């Protein structure tokens, strides 16, 4: 069965509109993307949707009460809330450096959570 799906690529803020034509679940054509990441994105959205998660982790006794963090790679979309819940349970002590691993293998995804700012 032939099908046509519209996506907005979210890999970068340009947000290209991408059209995918499938036939019996198989991708036949991808149009509208400005760069290869767009094709990559829609293929992923169709088979295994993933997101980078950004959030905060508490820091006790630092110049700031929280430090911003992100998953070092995309994790499955349906794991977003589990990831946030795991992060809620963590409390760090300063100093925290940009790039420090805050949590390994979050929710069994194999992805680490890293700090995205410095807190002294």
């Amino acid at each position, binding site marked *: 069965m032939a099908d046509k799906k519209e996506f907005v690529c979210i890999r970068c*803020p340009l947000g290209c509109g991408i059209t995918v034509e499938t036939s019996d679940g198989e991708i036949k054509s991808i149009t509208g993307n400005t760069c290869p990441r767009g094709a990559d994105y829609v293929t992923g959205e169709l088979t295994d949707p993933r997101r980078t998660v950004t959030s905060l982790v508490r820091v006790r006794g630092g110049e700031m009460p929280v430090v911003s963090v992100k998953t070092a790679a995309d994790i499955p979309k349906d794991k977003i809330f589990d990831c946030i819940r795991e992060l809620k349970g963590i409390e760090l002590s300063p100093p925290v450096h940009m790039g420090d691993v805050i949590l390994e293998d979050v929710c069994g995804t194999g992805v680490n959570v890293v700090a995205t700012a410095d807190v002294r």
Partner: protein
Amino acid sequence: MKKDLVIIGGGPAGLAAAAAAREAGVEDLVVLERDQRLGGILNQCIHNGFGLHTFKEELTGPEYAGRYIEKAAALGISCRLNTMVVDLAAEGSVKKVTVMNREEGLYEIRARAVILAMGCRERPRGALNIPGYRPAGIYTAGTAQRYVNMEGRMPGREVVVLGSGDIGLIMARRMTLEGAKVKLVAELMPYSGGLKRNIVQCLDDFGIPLKLSHTVVDIKGKERVESVTVAQVDEDSKPIPGTEEEVACDTLLLSCGLIPENELSESLGTAMNPATGGPLVDESLETDREGVFACGNVLHVHDLVDYVSEEAASAGRNAAAYLQGRLAEKGREIPIRAENGVRYTVPASIDIGRMGETQTVRFRVSGMFRDAAVEVACGGQVLKHIDRRVLAPGEMEQIILKKSELEKTAQAGDPKEISVCVRT
């Protein structure tokens, strides 16, 4: 104190401008930042999506800012924190920068050139023309963003967002992740003012409804917000009776747009562009005051920080050229006319003699256009005709003009203007 170059603002624009000026050979320069850290608004933008075009990787706001802070440090650029510029005036070609700092008090820097990079601020309660009480629980989205992301505090549990600008969309997701229930986002216009990716990633992903052509017509609650009433609006943005819906909530976030931070530009008396709220600049990003350049959100509100850095770097290079006597005297400026669907352009004029081999012209459109084209014409000749599937007011557009093309039309006759318009 004397300086060759003073850069006002230590956000991504100020930092990129400083780095470019130093790389072009300006030794005697300083960045003045009123906050206690560099990086500007990016410090509170903990979400990712920054810098794909500059660094070919997706960074969060603090990480993107970090790259430029490191670069400035590596170049030995002096940045003064907790230092606010309170006045700016010109005396002949000397710019008098009045500065306030806790250690040194009030002092003056006499600068040969200045780069304005003060960023923007939120429109305060702009769209909120609602009679009645002003209970607690009403915040601008950016204020809420600072509470949540810098202080780790939540402004409320049940939220309605008015306005679908990017900060509102990003905060809808942020508060959802933090455990709040975001009931809906209401947008007065029939389209969103935010980036498409933010609608997908911040609303659709979490099933948060976006109600276009809707506004808040009433707020209930005396001490604290208890509910808001949302209604549909007609083409003149007037609420349509009978469409009201009361939504229980304890928090109303306002995301009603940003305006350039231009007190200093005004005290200097630069000519302003009413369409952007920022100064009018030529191809060199120079204002009508000699040696005063502008870049970033103070010039026009950007949605892509990559464009901010790029624009700022060219302001930095031009300021260096000016200081080194390499920037040609202002000659014949050809005004750029924004018409038929184009709201404004930056720059607002081009001097062919002063421009580089290519010139980037950035602009915004005034409405949604589908299967349209952007057309640039000069002296009766169409220079560019670029087909576009979608043009949206929320997304800044850019076109690149070639010096050779403009020179050719200038030789054929003396062009009065360059026009940029949307063709449907």
